[in-house]
């Protein structure tokens, strides 16, 4: 039974990570035209970095075969949120208060189309984790049915 709950935790960690990615994407889309930020300058696109969670303390058994124990597996987590270092878009708009002497405005390096694609990706990954949880639930009910005839 413990195994079943730890499997659910793995899927839940995937859902948490994808939800965080959704938050970041929403932030990117909301700020696609923000030219002023607390740090100064236009908004920079943010991106999440996923990392696998492995309990190294448990050690890896079996050396040669690289055999892992399922107790070690902890799913995934967002290791960090990084800023996209690509250059800002330069848009010609002399009437804009943040325009420079030549009339160009630095706009965020957010590509809304790309964000939408990432959004769909995150959504599908989230759903994949939900279906893992459902499969695990089917496991639990099958196991509970043993011996009931």
């Amino acid at each position, binding site marked *: 039974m413990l195994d079943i709950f730890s499997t659910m935790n793995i899927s839940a960690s*995937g859902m948490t990570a994808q939800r965080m990615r959704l938050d970041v994407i929403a932030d990117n889309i909301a700020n696609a035209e923000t030219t002023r930020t607390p740090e100064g300058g236009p908004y920079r696109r943010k991106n999440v970095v996923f990392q696998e969670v492995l309990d190294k303390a448990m050690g890896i058994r079996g050396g040669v075969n690289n055999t*892992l124990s399922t107790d070690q597996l902890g799913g995934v987590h967002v290791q960090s949120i990084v800023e996209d270092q690509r250059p800002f878009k330069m848009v010609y708009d002399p009437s804009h208060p943040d325009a420079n002497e030549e009339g160009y405005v630095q706009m965020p390096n957010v590509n809304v189309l790309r964000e939408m694609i990432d959004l769909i990706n995150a959504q599908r*990954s989230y759903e994949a984790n939900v279906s893992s949880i459902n499969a695990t639930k089917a496991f639990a009910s099958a196991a509970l*049915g043993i011996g009931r005839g």
Partner: protein
Amino acid sequence: MSGLFNSNFGTLPAALDAASTRNTIIAQNIANAETPGYKRKEVDFEHYLQQAMGEGDDLELKKTEERHFQKYSSNIQDVQARVRTVSDTRITNDGNNVDIDQQEALMAANTIRYQTLSRLMSLTIARYNTVLKGVR
């Protein structure tokens, strides 16, 4: 298991455990489907079980060094699922090799396998119940 109980009581729990392990591994793979550099994990069980049941080849492996591959236990009850990492392939530019569709299909198949095995376990228990009730 000796005497009264046949080997189903040994193999079925082992197979159920293996299916459960595989479920955990697939969940981990799906959770990490977009982790850069993550390598897919797989569970080997059926192969070892077949070996233990003598259905594989009977040739012994020659070992010249303690850490060489060995044939695993020939006792069916001792057969355990083994997790390995498939690290020599990649399907995306970030080095990840999880095919999420394949993992979903594996998970569906594995769920049905688990349900089948648990049903078999129930039937095995029911058979003993029938015998025990007949004695009384």
